[in-house]
């Protein structure tokens, strides 16, 4: 398969030609950097309460103002990014991995297995996410891990379905038959022929899923089902800000901006990636 | 003598690509007289698809008409507005495409599609259906009443192609363009359809522009033949003139390569050495020079033009002979 260095070069040359994709990439990079380096970049401790300075507007000392407990919003947003990052990384990688396995089983395995799995996927998907989260929280209590767990369970069927459809389509393709005619084992076919042809769509789906996952976490935390105070998450910042909207709009604005930025960034970037990695879009001489 | 139905003069079309302009058609002349069947012979890359797209004005967005005119019954199609062009399509100019699997709408019944084609007609639905039935009979479809109710996927490829021909001829167009209509079909079906097309043409009197790389079918159907190579017309004339006495080296080679023509069975089939030239970086001189066994010095410098009377070919060899 392609060497990593070649892969990166190829990605960059593709991005250079696509301004939207480049914008997305830049946005994503900025957010990632800010998030990873939050502990060094944040001017204040996000948990630092200062009741004298509640709900203040942006100023030189507090670039995004303060929340209802006088905590610096900017710092909370930066650290909230870490929560978002952790949730998306963990949730998406696990869902993708499990979804990949289940999807391939459904797509390539015997008919009866496929039927059972599809019923399973559809059943899980038919539960409204919030209800599901409420049910789990009732059992385990609200926490970040609950949020991650709920997101994983509701995301697996989505990835699995995509993998299943792609795998089934591939199954009858001539080049798969050619491999079987050459005597290739099922394992080899899965590894060398099915996987590379479904991996790209899968990764791109994942990158476009980041905003959704972050949004889900924000939503669940907004409802109080996720992160427990005082830990900052974008959702809890929005929650707090909602109650005090009449006093100051800044918590809402501050909580919303990163969500918008991450949605736009990953969407543009993901779409650009999809085009870059479609071999058919390469010119004849590349 | 009536003016020709189609008269293409000096048509040159480029495609804008990342590597530069691709000269898909260069100075193409083509005449389709009234009531005649003209065949275009050419292999992949000869520009026939571009030519057809230009005639019906459905070129790709990156296509650029550098020069030339496409006169249909005296009107230059290239200067018509989209609305004017649309009124001609399906009425005076109709088309049959190569792939019978995709040229019909899979979610509409045959009857519905055949009525839709008659949308310019203000007659009632039953009158339109009657006309559809008549056309289906004409193209030799058995039990036409039942077929009107069916969907395309119920019909075989041969039947679908016949329906496509029926739809194309229903408006009694002046010009029918058939783009490889039988290439995707089995040989025995091809025979049926070609015979049918011949009968219908005699009956309706329309002109047909028939594109195919199947030389046997061209010989069966066409009155005149135009041979295209890499975007140029290299030879044209009546069927007999071109097929029995080919003048251009490419035509000669092409006819030699057709296994049907080779009387003695052989394990070493003739080929045309080399490959298609790069249409972005056009070689100087004759377009066929690199693959021609008769190439002279003049051929790399000067581009030959069509010469001769009714039977024309673009080759320096012809000009040098007295």
């Amino acid at each position, binding site marked *: 398969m392609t060497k990593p260095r070649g892969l990166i070069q190829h990605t960059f040359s593709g991005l250079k030609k696509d301004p939207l994709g480049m914008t997305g990439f830049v946005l994503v990079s900025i957010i990632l950097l800010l998030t990873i380096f939050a502990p060094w970049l944040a001017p204040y401790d996000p948990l630092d309460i200062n009741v004298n300075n509640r709900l203040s507007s942006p100023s030189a000392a507090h670039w995004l103002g303060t929340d209802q407990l006088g905590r610096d919003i900017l710092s909370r947003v930066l650290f909230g990014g870490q929560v978002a990052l952790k949730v998306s990384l963990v949730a998406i990688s696990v869902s993708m991995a499990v979804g990949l396995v289940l999807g391939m089983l459904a797509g390539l395995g015997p008919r009866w297995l496929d039927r059972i799995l599809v019923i399973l996927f559809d059943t899980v998907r038919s539960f409204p996410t919030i209800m599901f989260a409420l049910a789990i929280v009732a059992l385990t209590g609200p926490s970040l891990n609950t949020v991650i767990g709920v997101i994983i369970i509701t995301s697996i069927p989505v990835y699995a379905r995509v993998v299943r459809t792609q795998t089934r389509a591939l199954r009858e393709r*001539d080049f798969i*038959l*050619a*491999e079987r*005619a050459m005597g*290739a084992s099922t394992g080899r076919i899965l590894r060398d022929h099915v996987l590379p042809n479904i991996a790209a769509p899968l990764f791109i789906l994942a990158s476009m899923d980041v905003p959704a996952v972050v949004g889900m976490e924000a939503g669940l935390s907004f409802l109080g089902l996720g992160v427990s105070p005082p830990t900052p998450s974008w959702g809890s910042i929005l929650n707090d800000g909602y109650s005090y909207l009449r006093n100051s709009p800044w918590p809402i604005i501050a909580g919303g901006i990163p969500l918008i930025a991450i949605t736009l960034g990953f969407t543009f970037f993901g779409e650009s990636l999809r085009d870059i990695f479609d071999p*058919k879009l390469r010119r004849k001489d590349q | 003598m009536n003016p020709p139905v189609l008269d293409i003069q000096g048509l040159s079309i480029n495609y804008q690509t990342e590597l530069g302009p691709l000269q898909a058609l260069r100075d193409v002349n083509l005449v389709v007289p009234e009531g005649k069947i003209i065949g275009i012979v050419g292999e992949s890359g000869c520009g026939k698809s571009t030519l057809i797209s230009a005639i019906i004005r459905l070129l790709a967005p990156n296509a650029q008409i550098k020069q030339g005119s496409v006169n249909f019954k005296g009107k230059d199609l290239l200067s018509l507005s989209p609305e004017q062009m649309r009124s001609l399509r399906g009425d005076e100019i109709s088309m049959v495409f190569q792939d019978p699997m995709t040229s019909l709408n899979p979610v509409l019944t045959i009857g519905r599609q055949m009525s839709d084609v008659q949308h310019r007609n203000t007659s009632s639905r039953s009158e339109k259906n009657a006309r559809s039935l008549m056309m289906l009979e004409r193209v030799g479809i058995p039990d036409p009443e039942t077929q009107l109710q069916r969907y395309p996927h119920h019909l075989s490829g041969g039947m679908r192609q016949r329906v496509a021909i029926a739809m194309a001829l229903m408006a009694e167009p002046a010009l029918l363009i058939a783009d490889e209509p039988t290439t995707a079909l089995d040989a025995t079906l091809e025979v049926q359809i070609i015979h049918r097309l011949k009968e219908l043409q005699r009956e309706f009197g329309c002109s047909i522009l028939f594109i195919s790389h199947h030389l046997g079918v061209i010989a069966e159907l066409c009155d005149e033949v135009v041979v295209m190579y890499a975007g140029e017309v290299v030879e044209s004339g009546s069927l007999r003139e071109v097929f*029995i006495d080919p003048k251009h080296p490419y035509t000669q080679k092409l006819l030699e390569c*057709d296994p049907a023509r080779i009387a003695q069975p052989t394990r070493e089939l003739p080929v045309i050495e080399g490959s298609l030239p790069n249409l972005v970086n056009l070689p100087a001189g004759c377009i066929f020079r690199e693959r021609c066994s008769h190439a002279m010095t003049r051929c790399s410098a000067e581009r030959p033009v069509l010469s001769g009377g009714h039977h024309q070919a673009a080759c320096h060899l012809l000009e040098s002979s007295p």
Partner: protein
Amino acid sequence: MSTLLTVRDLRVRYSVRGGFVDVVHGVSLDINRGETTAIVGESGSGKTTLAMALCGLAPIHGGEVRLDGEMLKQDRKNRLNPDRKRVALMFQDPVGSLNPRMTVRRALAEPFRIHGSDAQSPDKEALRLLSMVGLGDDFADRYPHQLSGGQARRVGVARALALRPDVLIADEPTAGLDVSIQGEILNLLSRLQKEMGVGILMITHNLNVVRHVADQMAIMYLGRFIEQGNSQQIFDQPRHPYTAALLSANPSPDPDAQSSQIELKGDVPSLLQRPSGCEFHTRCPRAKVQCRNAFPELTATNGNQQFNCFFPMGE
């Protein structure tokens, strides 16, 4: 032994809604070393299914196949299991039979990787194979969609012959190719056949090609061979009316030739409703009452031409 593959009374049956279809309905043939046998038929004749069955990609319902005298066994799904190093398959769609995300080099290395060869490294073998089919080294790093039809076909030939198989089954090797390129591919196959002694089974509907490259041929209709034997003999004197119709349907580009095409009535019948008696009677211009009522037994002429017909041509 000169006969590599013997097929006797092979059957492939699929269940469908409404019953079952016998796509291959009792087919027998021999493939010999260094010879080319062509199976000719139109869409729906079952010729591609026959090719798939011989390579173990379709289940067998009956009959037996022997490779070098040894009978091939079936797996749990009733598929044959020939030694893949000895029986190779070339697909009809040259670009589609290559993994779109794999370079040509990688695709050509596959047979070696699968069967673990102790020859030179798979990559070196890939380059050797490219030159064997007349493609330069620069093709190694191309992707399938960057190849023309003829180039992709050559890659297919190279991949199929990589391990020097005894039998090569080629499904429509000239389909979709321009006439000037068809010759190149066929010449390539002939040359390699002479060098390697491989027996070729060619599935095609292009009779003009068969006349030149096939030693033996069989004409297939609704899953059966209705005529088979030495191809030259059959071309000179076809006995079965369907064979005659097929031959006449491929006119030579000769404007002076009389239009002698035999036009067959109607369409190919559905496999779900096979006609009674001689299955071709519904379309045959020579059919008589007897043809509807009884199945014509095999007639063999001198030489090895065989056919099933009550009223063959030339009588």
